C-alpha cells in the first residue's frame, strides 16, 4: 500500500473554504515571469499552484492553453530549469503545494525514475500526467508515490460510478473533475451537482473541478458542488493579454476568485 499522507493531503484539510488551484504554463512567456506569477497568485490567495510543463503537442488542452504552451515551447523549458524555479519558490514558501503537470512523453524522455526523483527533490507535492490513465500508470505511480508525492487522478463525465470507485481507491492527494473540453463545459450544472454529490460519498479526497472558470461568479457556482476549482485557461488568457500591469491584473483576478469562493463558505 502506498503512503496516503502526502504533503498535499496534509495541506488541504486545514481550510474550511473551497480550494482554489491555479495553473500556470511554465515558461509562458519566460521562466522568470512564471516564477513571479507564482508569488502573485499565492499572495492573492491560491491554495496551490499547478505548473504545466510545456509539451509540443498538448492535444487534450484547449486553444488558450495550447497557445500558452506554444509560447513556452520557444523558451525550451527543461526539467532542470523548472525544478530550479520550484526549488527557488520553495525557499520562499514552504507550504503552498506545487503540482506539476505534463504529457507522458516528457516524463518518458527523462525516464520515470529520474523524473520523479528530480521533482521530489525540488519540492513538488503532486504530479499530474494528462495522457496517463490509471491503467497505464503502474510504474510511474510507484516512482511518484514512493517519493511522497501524489499522482493526481482525473475523473470525467464519462467515468462510470464503478470505475470511479476503483480509481478512488487508488487515488492520492486529490481528484480533479475534468468537466470541460477546451472551452465547452461538458455537463449541465444540475447534473454536475448531482453527480458530484454522488461521487463524494466514495472518497475522502477532495474533488476539485476544472470547469473553465472565468470569473469569481463561475468559481462560486462550481465550487458549490465540490471541494474547489482548478483555474488554468483564464489565467493563461490574462497572461496572453500581457500589457504593463499583467501582474496587477493577475493578482486582482485571483483575489476575486478567492473572495467569491470564501463567500459561499459563509
Amino acid at each position, binding site marked *: 500500500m502506498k503512503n496516503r499522507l502526502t504533503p498535499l493531503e496534509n495541506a488541504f484539510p486545514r481550510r474550511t473554504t473551497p480550494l482554489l488551484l491555479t495553473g500556470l504554463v511554465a515558461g509562458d512567456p519566460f521562466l522568470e515571469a512564471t516564477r513571479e506569477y507564482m508569488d502573485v497568485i499565492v499572495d492573492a490567495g491560491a491554495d496551490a499552484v499547478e505548473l504545466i510543463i510545456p509539451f509540443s503537442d498538448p492535444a*487534450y488542452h484547449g486553444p488558450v492553453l495550447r497557445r500558452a504552451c506554444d509560447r513556452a515551447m520557444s523558451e525550451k523549458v527543461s526539467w532542470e530549469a523548472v525544478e530550479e524555479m520550484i526549488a527557488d519558490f520553495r525557499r520562499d514558501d514552504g507550504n503552498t503545494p506545487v503540482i506539476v503537470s505534463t504529457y507522458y512523453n516528457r516524463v518518458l524522455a527523462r525516464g520515470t525514475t529520474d523524473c520523479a526523483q528530480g521533482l521530489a527533490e525540488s519540492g513538488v507535492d503532486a504530479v499530474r500526467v494528462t495522457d496517463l490513465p490509471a491503467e497505464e500508470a503502474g510504474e510511474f505511480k510507484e516512482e511518484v508515490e514512493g517519493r511522497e508525492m501524489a499522482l493526481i487522478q482525473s475523473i470525467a463525465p464519462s467515468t462510470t460510478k464503478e470505475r470511479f470507485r476503483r480509481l478512488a481507491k487508488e487515488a492520492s492527494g486529490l481528484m480533479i473533475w475534468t468537466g470541460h473540453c477546451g472551452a465547452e463545459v461538458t455537463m449541465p450544472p444540475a447534473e454536475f451537482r448531482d453527480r458530484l454529490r454522488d461521487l463524494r460519498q466514495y472518497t475522502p479526497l477532495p474533488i476539485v473541478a476544472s470547469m473553465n472558470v472565468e470569473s469569481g461568479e463561475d468559481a462560486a457556482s462550481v465550487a458549490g458542488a465540490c471541494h474547489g476549482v482548478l483555474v488554468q485557461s483564464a489565467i493563461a488568457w490574462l497572461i496572453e493579454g500581457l500589457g504593463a500591469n499583467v501582474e496587477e491584473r493577475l493578482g486582482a483576478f485571483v483575489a476575486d476568485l478567492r473572495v467569491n469562493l470564501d463567500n459561499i463558505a459563509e
Partner: protein
Amino acid sequence: MNDPIEYAEQRGRFGSFGGRYVPEPLWTPFEAVAQAYRDAMDDEDYHRREGRWRQSRLGRPTPLTHLGALSSEIGGAQLWAKREDLLDGGTFCITSALTQALIAERMEKSRLLGESATGDFGVALGSVGAALGLDVTVFMRRAAIEQERLNAARMRRLGVELVAVDAAGRGRSQAMAEALRSYSISWDETFYATSSLASPAPYPQMVGRALSVIGEECKEQLRDENIEVEYAIAPVGSGSFAAGLFEALLDDEGPQIIGAQAGGGPETTRNSASLVRGRPGVYLGTHSLVLQDDEGQILAAHAEAPGLVMPVAGPQHARWLQEGRVHYVMVDDADALQAQRRLARTEGIFASRETGYGLAYALKLAPTLRSDQHILVGISGTGIRGLGQDDEETDEGGIA
C-alpha cells in the same frame, strides 16, 4: 501467443508497445469500443456481414497485378502489385472505415467522427457512413482542405460535415486532437473512427485486423499464381496500410518484409521515419516509436506524400522492429516521386505518391535478384488525389 492479434487485443498491447494513453474523459468511451469490438469478433454474423460488404460494396478482393513491363525494364526480380487503388474511393482506407462503421452500428451510435490528413479516410468514412445511415463528421486541417480540393468536394457530395481545424504544420495530429476533443463531449451518440494506426487501444488492434485482409488476399493470390515472394514492401506513415499488407505474411518461412518510410533526401534531415529515427515514447495515445527530441518534444514530420507525414507509427510496427521481423528503411522523397512516375509511364498505373516510397525501394532491390524471384509491393491508392493540387506541373509535356 499463437495468434498475435488475439494476444494483442486482450491486453491492448503489442509486446511492450501499444496501450491506451488517453485522458480520463476518453478512457471509458474507448473501453466501450474495445468491448463492442471484442463482441463483434466473437460474432459470426458480424464476420459474415463484414465479408459481404467488403466484397459487394468495397470491391474486395483487389487484384494482384504482375508488373511485367516494369520488371523487364528494371531487370531482375518480378514485381507484383497489390492494387488497393481499385477499392471504392481509390485507397485502402475504406476497408478500415467499414469495420469501424460496422462496430459503430453495433454500438447503436448515430454518428461517425474522425480525422483525415488527406481526405482519403474522410471520403471512405463518408461512403460507409452514408450507406449505413450514420452521420459523418470529419476534422481536417484548413490548409489540407484547401490543398485537397478534390477530396473536400467528394466529402461534401457524400454529405460529410467537414470541420476545418486551424493549426500550423502538416500531418494529422492536430486534426486528431480536435476530433478527440469533440468526441469527448459527444461519445454518447458518436463513434470515433481513425485512419491512424498510431492510436489508443483498441484502435491499432481493430484497424490492424480490418486491414489484415489485404495480406490475406495476397497470400491466397500468390498461392494461386504459384509464387513465393522474397520481399514484401509497403510505405509506412502511421503504418496501417503496411500492417494490413504485412500481418498475414509475417511468418518465419515468409518473405523479408520491408516498411518504407519517408527519409527526406540529401538536402534535408527532415523525415517521417519514426521507425528508423524515432525513440520509444507515448504519443497520440499509444506507446510506440516517436520522432522526438531529448526533452520528449515531438518533432515535425516531413514527407512529400501527405499520407506519410506522421511522427509516430502504430505500436505493432514498434514491436515488429524490436523483434526484427520487419526491416524499416528510409527512402528519399525524390526517389519516391521518380518511382511513382515510372509506374505510371511504364505500367499505366497512376498510384499515390505514398506508394512511390515502397516502390522506389523495390526498384533498387529488383536488379539484385534473379528474374525467377519475386517482390510484392503494396499500392495504397490512386494518384488522383494529388492532381487536385499540382496540375500546374507541365514539365511532363504539354498539349499539342
